[in-house]
């Protein structure tokens, strides 16, 4: 009888576990929780009062890591195989002025392992491609800075315009373009499971902290129109760096489905 029981248990696969589990989950992204769909007003570190009327961010993919990675850090590979516990593939153009959850086109997958950091991949395709015409950040609005008004727009890409120069000939691969496309490490505290949803909140306000609108390029006087150029210097560079900021811009949360 005992033999039969053992046999039955084994046949049912109830003889123990190897720990953790593979999981699939849903994932959504949104603007900040106080976004209502209406223009978003805030003040930057430069003292500019900004009203964002349009803001979209192109998400390539999102990864969750079980350890604080060396990946993505300077002088380290962009990818560190073995640390990943979750992944969600886009593309997803997120309306940053809306707090409504915008679902990723693909389900997330991973393991039921505590994630400590996250990565946001801002790319339209191959993260290592030298060229990528995809507009990653597309914003428009107006800013009042120093008593001047700056109706502005910006379309930020990450391609050759973001390629860093090799400073140490002994390390020619120390600054791959993928470093410019991956926001990391973003501290998180969550554990993926089969019954949950990953929420990625993106707050565009922090992206503008270091943008000096007075250096924006005037496109026309009538109507008054400025453009933040897609360059590595000036307000374009500042906006790009703000977009890559690993604190204040991106936050991750996990909600269990009842």
């Amino acid at each position, binding site marked *: 009888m005992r033999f039969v029981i*053992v*046999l039955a248990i*084994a*046949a049912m*696969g109830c*003889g*123990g*576990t*190897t*720990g*953790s*589990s*593979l999981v699939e989950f849903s994932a959504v992204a949104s603007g900040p929780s106080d976004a209502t769909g209406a223009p978003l007003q805030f003040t930057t570190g430069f003292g500019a009062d900004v009203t964002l009327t349009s803001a979209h961010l192109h998400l*390539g*993919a999102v*990864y969750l890591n079980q350890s604080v990675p060396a990946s993505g850090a300077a*002088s*380290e*590979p*962009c*990818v*560190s*195989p*073995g640390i*990943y*516990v*979750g*992944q969600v*593939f*886009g*593309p997803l153009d997120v309306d940053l002025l809306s707090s409504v959850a915008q679902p990723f086109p693909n389900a997330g*997958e*991973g*393991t*039921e392992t505590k994630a400590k950091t996250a990565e946001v*991949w801002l790319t339209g*395709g191959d*993260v*290592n491609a030298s060229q990528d015409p995809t507009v990653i950040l597309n914003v428009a609005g107006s800013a009042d800075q120093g008593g001047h008004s700056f109706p502005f727009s910006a379309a930020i890409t990450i391609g050759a315009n973001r390629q860093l120069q090799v400073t*140490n*000939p*002994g*390390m*020619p*691969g*120390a600054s*791959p373009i*993928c470093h410019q496309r991956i926001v990391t490490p973003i501290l998180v505290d969550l554990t993926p499971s089969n019954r949950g949803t990953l929420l990625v909140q993106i707050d565009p306000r922090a992206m503008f902290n270091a943008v000096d609108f007075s250096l924006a390029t005037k496109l026309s006087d009538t109507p008054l129109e400025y453009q933040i150029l897609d360059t590595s210097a000036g307000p374009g560079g500042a906006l790009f760096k703000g977009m890559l900021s690993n604190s204040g811009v991106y936050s991750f949360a996990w909600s269990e489905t009842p």
Partner: protein
Amino acid sequence: MHEAPINMLYLRGRLGPEMHPAYWITRMVALSVCLYATGATAQESPAAAPPTSASAVVPPQAQRRVDAIYPPTELAAGREANVALLVTVGRDGAVRDVTVAESGGQLFDESAVVAVKQWTFVPARRGDLAIASRIRVPFRFALPPVAAAPPTAPAPSPEPSQEAAPPPTPDAVAKPEVTSEGNADRAAPPAPTEVEVQGRTRPPSRGTSDYQLEVGGLATVPRQNAAEILKLAPGILLTNEGGEGHAEQVFLRGFDAREGQDIEFSVDGVPINESGNLHGNGYSDTHFIIPELVESLRVVEGPFDPRQGNYAVAGSADYHLGLAERGVTTKFSAGSFGTYRELFTYAPPDGTPGTFAAGELYQTKGFGMNRDGQRGAAMFQYEGQAGDTRYRVAANAYIASFHTAGVLRDDDYRAGRVGFFDTYDPLQGEDSSRYSLSGALETHVGKIAAQNEVFLIIRPLRLRENFTGFLLDVQEPLQNPHDQRGDLIDLNNLGRTLGVRGNARVSEHVLGKLEEIEVGYFARGDFVSSTQQRIEAATGHPYHTDIDLDSTLGDLGLYADANLRFTRWLAFRGGVRGDLFTFSVNNNCAVQSVEHPSPSNPPGDQPCLSQQNFGAFREPNQRVTTVSSAYMPRASLIIGPFWGVSGSVSGGKGVRSIDPIYVTQDAKTPFASISAYEGGLSYQHQISDRVELGVRSALFETTVDRDLIFSQTAGRNVLGGATTRVGSANSARLTGPSYDVATNLTYVKATFADTGLLIPYVPDLVVRGDAAVHGELPWWWAHWDGRAVRASVAVGVTYVGPRPLPYGSRSDTIFTIDNNLTLGWSFAELSLSVQNLLDTEYRLGEFNYASDFHSQSFPTLVPVRHFSAGAPRTFLFSLALNYGASK
């Protein structure tokens, strides 16, 4: 592996005055019975042996004799003849195979064969156990004298010449007084007068888990290679994601033994495990063994025998080669997926099964993408005797080349991005060869039997595998900017092995009981060159060297083993073994990164660097030497038999040396140590003269202090933590005159010692069944030319329960049925084998890990399910023709 590579016994004696009186028409000149104990019982009882040597062999005795018919035409022509037959007597006492060793002409030969096939025997025995044997039976067809002599006076008469004695007519033939069936025209059968027994002794059984597996009637169960014969032992699962000729991955009693790293493999004592193989230290590829040449197999599940050496972690398996079918045999096979096989064997009719030559050619297009393969093998072995010394020389050559499909991601398969039998990387495959020479001597001086064997093995291997796609080739700061080039591993390994082994056994009667002491040695040196590079998918060029080693490895083992019988029902078998391992490893690629490279001479993409920080020069190599030793006590206490039931308790320690890449200068080699214990019961019952039943059941526990866990990123096993296995192995075999049925079931729980979590990939439930029914068709239409059509039907069933996979999941179950139907008549045999009869779409291997085959729009970096596809339904037709041996 045991330390008795040839273990042959030679004894000579008289069976007694059992001269047969019937000698009128024919007379027996002499009978010498040359018994070749095949060393093969399906379920040898581990019971304590009677107070004779455990290796003592009692020859078969004829139980029913049927006389040969003097061919009328030959009689009329006045012709006489001598015919000598080699007869295989099965464990059931039935005549299994008859070959003509000495021909007297076709009609005489046929008459003798027809007669002897109707004989039955009391089978040969080793101790209490019936064993298969091969005897020589001479027939003398002599004309009667003109005046009939009394039938009870068989004194040799002068052979009449044509002149002196004109050919008699049949009517003139006098009748023999004693024949089994009283036919007047029959030649009287011979009776044994002198016995010559030549057999291989086996090490005394170590208990319930010491399996002496005779292939026997189960030879017709479809098996693709010699490794699959292992399935006759309990708890063995074979998988293979490496392709047609890749070593089988063996799971045994809760061990993921990979390609043999945890099992000591040998063939007639010659080791198969490859020390220093970069793919896995102890890698064992048995494809060089032609399956038809496997006569028996000794599997010891656990380190319980002092003869077992390095790698005997889960146990050991020693193949014993022999060819019962004498003469020349050609076998042609053709089947599904462009599969063709040609097999040629030759065995001198008057030789022992241990003398043969065989060659095999095989090719297939494979059952899916990138699964084509070709291989060839040649094996030669000669056994002879000079005085009281027996010797054996063996040589074999094996070459193979094939492609491999590798693994597929389950999400890609479910999304339709790949098919079930597809591949990601068509560059995967293997080129493999093996060449070996060996020689063995056995001498007997007084009470001492000594055996020695020497072997030389050359083993080149190139292996290309890609488990991870494009996951691992990340942009390193030292490297020039590059796209991902792929993770295809190109592993090259050239092993050269030279070794000797031997033992001396002394037997002495003490207080009326035969006690035995054996001491033995084993020594091998391995000289291994191994490299592992990465291949660029786009060009096929190597772009990075991972490993480049030159290793000189030594293993010297000594053991002492006692077989002590305290009473008729209590025996102790055990001893101690010590092994000394030496490592000298030159790492030619010791430096692969430098924190501060020279800005004026940057290393760039060079993998094996000759600079230290800030460009300081150093040679790129680093030599490491170390030595370590292990002492391993092993013992078994065997009780019984009582009414056929025997009990045993066994315990022992084993060891597995580590991969050379893990060796550290002067640090004690961190080999894995194993402790194993088991208790078991066995039941052996001779139901009738020709029906035998054997049943075994064992409970076991095995702990390993440093286990090997397979790493897909490394492409090989890597050292892990301590593990424990607890389980039960059970088997049964029923052998009869026309059937052979074997089944086994193993349940095991294999866990990590620190966490209690299951060890991934190890199946906890394995069930296997083999059955064969064979015989001659009784119907009139199935007899042609006086010979019956032989038929056999065989089936093999495998069930593997859900295997634990990493991340808490379980694999699918495996359930397959393989069949074989064979029809034979005279010298011809036609067979059809069907593997995976139900055409189940099953996954031979399943794995959870991270890979990136560029099948999706972004890098896939989290663990997901992967699998290697099992073969679909496969047909194979074969036609075998045998010449020079009667059936």
